[in-house]
């Protein structure tokens, strides 16, 4: 049985969670140290499939700025972040762009889109 210390980032409390693997039980992971139920969900997720929102920028032409800020419109697996960056870094757009416009749809088959996080014209 292994135990891992994880800091919950769901809210600013920043609880120190102890997540233990427990193969004999019905629930595979046991979480301690969480002050609320969201911490349990987060702790298990961090063990099974940690995910993050990715924010970055892409090249934009014909615009007052050289870069357009973009984000994933949902969470992507943490270990795919750098692969996502590779895809995003190849993309170039031209103004005008509206906030929420889809720049890359279903990136790396994650079911998540890369969208513009501001308008630019």
């Amino acid at each position: 049985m292994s135990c891992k210390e994880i800091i919950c980032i769901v809210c600013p409390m920043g609880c120190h969670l102890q997540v233990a693997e427990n193969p004999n039980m019905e629930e595979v992971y046991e979480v301690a140290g969480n002050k609320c139920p969201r911490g349990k969900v987060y702790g298990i997720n961090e063990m099974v499939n940690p995910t993050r929102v990715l924010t970055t920028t892409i090249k934009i032409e014909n615009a007052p700025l050289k870069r357009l800020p973009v984000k994933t419109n949902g969470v992507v697996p943490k270990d795919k972040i750098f692969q996502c960056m590779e895809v995003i870094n190849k993309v170039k757009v031209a103004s005008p762009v509206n906030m929420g416009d889809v720049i890359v749809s279903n990136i790396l088959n994650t079911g998540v889109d890369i969208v513009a996080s501001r308008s630019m014209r």
Partner: protein
Amino acid sequence: MYDVAVIGGGPAGLAAAIEARRNGIQNILVIERDRELGGILQQCIHNGFGLHIFKEELTGPEYAERFVNELNELGIEYKLDSMVLEITKDKKVHYVNSKDGFVSIQAKSIILAMGCRERTRGAIGVAGTRPAGVFTAGTAQRYLNMEGYMVGKKIVILGSGDIGLIMARRLTLEGAEVKIVLERMPYPGGLTRNIVQCLNDYNIPLKVSHTISSIKGKDRVEGVTIVQLDESGRIIPGSEQFMECDTLILSVGLIPENELSEKLEMRLDKVTKGPYVNEAMETSVSGIFACGNVVHVHDIVDYVTEESRIAGRNAAKYAKGELKTEGRLVETVPGNGISYIVPHTIRVNNIENKVDLLMRVRQVFHDVRMIIKADGEKIREIKKSHLLPGEMERVSLDIKALTCKNIAKLEVEICEGEE
């Protein structure tokens, strides 16, 4: 003649102008020196804005755009590329831009919303040469996120405030190697969630009680000397360690932009470095209000918006001659463990139903009680499991707490241990 003039078009200025309009003011002018509205938010492309106001995690530009759209829908007038040079006590605003030249306008009331600026190396005193490759975190953020200019490849970050942490992750994503983040205090400056998401996720080491004693390099940074500090902040002899890098990023704090406030001979708070304000967010100069980072540096933009709405509402009242100046005055006093409280004074007659006290603690506290006293008598006690100087605390007080007796002083203090 304007009823309300707003200096600065960041989240503070936008929220204040919108709120003034909602309170019946037609003649409003927002003056912004940048080429667009939104302020610092336009370069903060990460998410984490708007959790309180919109119950969503927005990026900085998204948060800004919602307010810019609202400003436009309400038809509020604004000037871009216009720098305010001076404000006078009789409420004249002097600004310049390349189209109209030097312009003077008269307003009935003014709202200061100029935000803050970053401390630079001069303000912290690192020895050594002055080669290229030293940036403040905010400048590096603007270069990277707006101009598309990568500041370097091998990076050392001095200071663990949120901007430094956010930049550590951002630079790593863009292919740089962030070698280390150093913090001179014994605890990190930024939010815990940023330490986890920005440093731990990318295996970037953070060393507390460490700083830089000198920078090496003639034309470009070649490296820095890292030293360890003891409890009283002195360099531990023999702890020097050289680290190679081509870029040094300074994230060593923000201070309110107070050039205009100083010229007005406004009363300033020594701790926040911003103006003294009352419950209406009015400064010591009657009819001149202030909100956002120009008053005290905020870590959460939602609080900036809420504070700025108070300023906007009261500037509107002032312009209409409805703001009360007479009546009982309550002073707020930062007691044990608290470094400052905003507002500094409260005119009880202007409070509608509650007043929010915003404050910061001086050091890290665990499992303590925050005690609010009215003229020395305890009126409220709040248990706190975590208090960090990097996280602003807010306490709402019901108007009844202030009106039930003839209170003159409200004090907040931190008590360690059990009762």
